[in-house]
């Protein structure tokens, strides 16, 4: 069992430094170096050609749209755009990499020296971007045999090259220092902000659960106040926003325990396990990692003109922080409300819910209060909950129409999240409509009067305020489905 130090104790003794490497699949129609389609979920090996299969004699040709997307990402991250840069070959053998080298960028990235400001608890942290470079994705392996379906212990593997050659942008931060105990939260906020920025640019689907955005978390600790960089680990497979924070906290606790016990950190790759919430050791970095980079001779240099760069810069969407300020004004949220919305990662969802007809406050109430709690309980991202902004808007519309009340609405959420269909179907199937039928209500009122004769007498005596107790009893009897307004009218009518 791995020794762990409590997070608070670890933070009392050490300063963390974090670096994030995020791989983003672009949403171009074709691959980086060939005209094969990039659509997700196609039949295996139906989106390949001589080039992306690495057949002898085939040659790459750069997708101009991918270059444009890379530059727009760089510009949105406040980066410099290279005046001249090349692709390089990163040489290593792996069965899902058709050429046994990855065409990537090495010491000449297309974008470099930028930053992204992220907000945590109302505080702005500036994350420095070292580089954003272009490369290509690998194929995907299915591991057959063994008990786990994982690579270890498998008898053999089956490779599908549909994904091989899909354009990737790798965005690498400089070490994030000085965030102290908030470092894991900053990391999560960085990935969330980056995702929103990429969505705004419309350059990627950024679906972490489909692998179109993948994150590696590098983390090291140094003694508190030392201002040095310790030995880092590189945790791979961190593929959800929650995991970014959890994996970082786990590595803090693990490394702190090791260091406190007089041990040292191994520079290694580690793997994050979403299910168990731990990292395990992978490959140790060694001098066998000699990638023998050299300029790709089959491709010519990329030298974007300054005019092109200026044109792309002018066409960038509104910066994220400006947009948030604008939305807060439009929606009339207080600073505190907006902070909760951002912390819940609900800005985009609320925007869409409002677009589907809901009021801002209602949209905020459901996403931030109700659904965030459910996402946390289920251990998933808010965006991963199986409910759409349109469905949330429809549920609120049902409330507004008086067909259901807030209490019933929660049951409609239960139904939609359980996969019982659209809100109206859930209402119908569960019989959740508010009862305002006088017959049914009358019977319940009669039962309530019979059970509470003294209360009834008080009302008859003119103490109208006592009606609340009877209404409560009726509502309880009707399991919340009664129209409370009508119940009050009927009670007063009967006892006057």
């Amino acid at each position: 069992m791995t020794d762990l130090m409590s997070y608070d104790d670890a933070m009392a003794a050490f300063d963390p430094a974090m670096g994030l490497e995020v791989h983003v699949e672009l949403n171009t129609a074709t691959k980086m170096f060939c005209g094969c389609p990039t659509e997700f979920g196609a039949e295996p090996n139906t989106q390949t050609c001589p080039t992306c299969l690495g057949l002898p004699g085939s040659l790459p040709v750069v997708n101009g749209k991918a270059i444009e997307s890379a530059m727009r990402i760089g510009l949105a991250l406040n980066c410099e755009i290279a005046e001249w840069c090349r692709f390089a070959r990163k040489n290593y053998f792996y069965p899902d990499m058709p050429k046994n080298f990855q065409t990537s960028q090495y010491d000449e990235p297309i974008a470099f020296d930028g930053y992204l400001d992220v907000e945590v608890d109302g505080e702005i942290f500036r994350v420095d971007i070292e580089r954003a470079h272009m490369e290509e994705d690998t194929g995907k392996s299915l591991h057959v045999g063994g008990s786990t379906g994982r690579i270890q212990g498998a008898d053999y593997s089956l490779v599908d090259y549909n994904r091989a050659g899909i354009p990737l942008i790798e965005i690498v931060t400089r070490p994030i220092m000085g965030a102290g105990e908030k470092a894991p939260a900053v990391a999560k906020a960085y990935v969330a902000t980056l995702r929103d920025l990429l969505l705004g640019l419309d350059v990627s689907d950024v679906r972490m659960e489909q692998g179109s955005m993948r994150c590696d978390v590098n983390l090291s600790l140094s003694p508190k106040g030392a201002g040095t960089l310790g030995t880092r680990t590189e945790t791979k497979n961190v593929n959800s926003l929650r995991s970014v924070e959890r994996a970082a906290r786990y590595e803090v606790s693990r490394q702190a325990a090791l260091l406190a016990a007089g041990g040292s950190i191994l520079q290694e790759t580690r793997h994050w396990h979403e299910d168990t919430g731990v990292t395990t050791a992978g490959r140790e970095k060694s001098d066998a990692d000699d990638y023998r980079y050299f300029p790709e001779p089959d491709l010519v240099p990329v030298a974007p003109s300054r005019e092109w760069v200026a044109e792309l810069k002018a066409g960038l969407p509104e910066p994220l922080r400006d947009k948030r300020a604008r939305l807060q004004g439009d929606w009339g949220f207080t600073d505190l409300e907006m902070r909760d919305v951002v912390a819940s990662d609900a800005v985009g969802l609320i925007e869409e819910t409002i677009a589907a007809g809901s009021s801002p406050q209602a949209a905020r109430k459901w996403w931030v209060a109700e659904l965030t709690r459910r996402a946390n309980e289920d251990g998933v991202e808010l965006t991963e909950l199986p409910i759409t902004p349109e469905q949330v808007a429809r549920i609120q519309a049902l409330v507004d129409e008086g067909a259901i009340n807030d209490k019933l609405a929660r049951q409609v959420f239960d139904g939609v999240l359980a996969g019982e269909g659209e809100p109206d179907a859930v209402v119908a199937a569960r019989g959740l409509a508010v009862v305002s039928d006088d017959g049914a209500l009358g019977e319940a009122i009669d039962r309530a009067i019979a059970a509470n004769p003294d209360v009834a007498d008080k009302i008859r005596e003119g103490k109208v305020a006592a009606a609340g107790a009877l209404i409560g009893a009726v509502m309880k009897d009707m399991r919340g489905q009664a129209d409370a307004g009508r119940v009050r009218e009927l009670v007063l009518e009967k006892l006057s």
Partner: protein
Amino acid sequence: MPEITRDEVAHLATLARIDLSDAELDHLAPQLSVILESVASITGVAGDDVPPTSHAIPLTNVFRDDVVTPSLTAEQALAMAPASEQQRFLVPRILGDEQ
């Protein structure tokens, strides 16, 4: 003078994924040393003022439009595979980490 040892050749063969026999290693190491000696004259020929040439004919910005072209069928893609299963390339068990 560049001298390439038997151990270095063995390491390079590992990097290059070639299973060289002992006899091949014995044979190759001295041959490579001779070849390296014959090319060693190149070190120091050109100074920092000489830019390297990676492409003899200087071209830049050769791009393709983002337009789908026909792919091979899975049958064509797999036709020359040493082994396949479930419309995928069958490869022996993979050592090391998930990539």
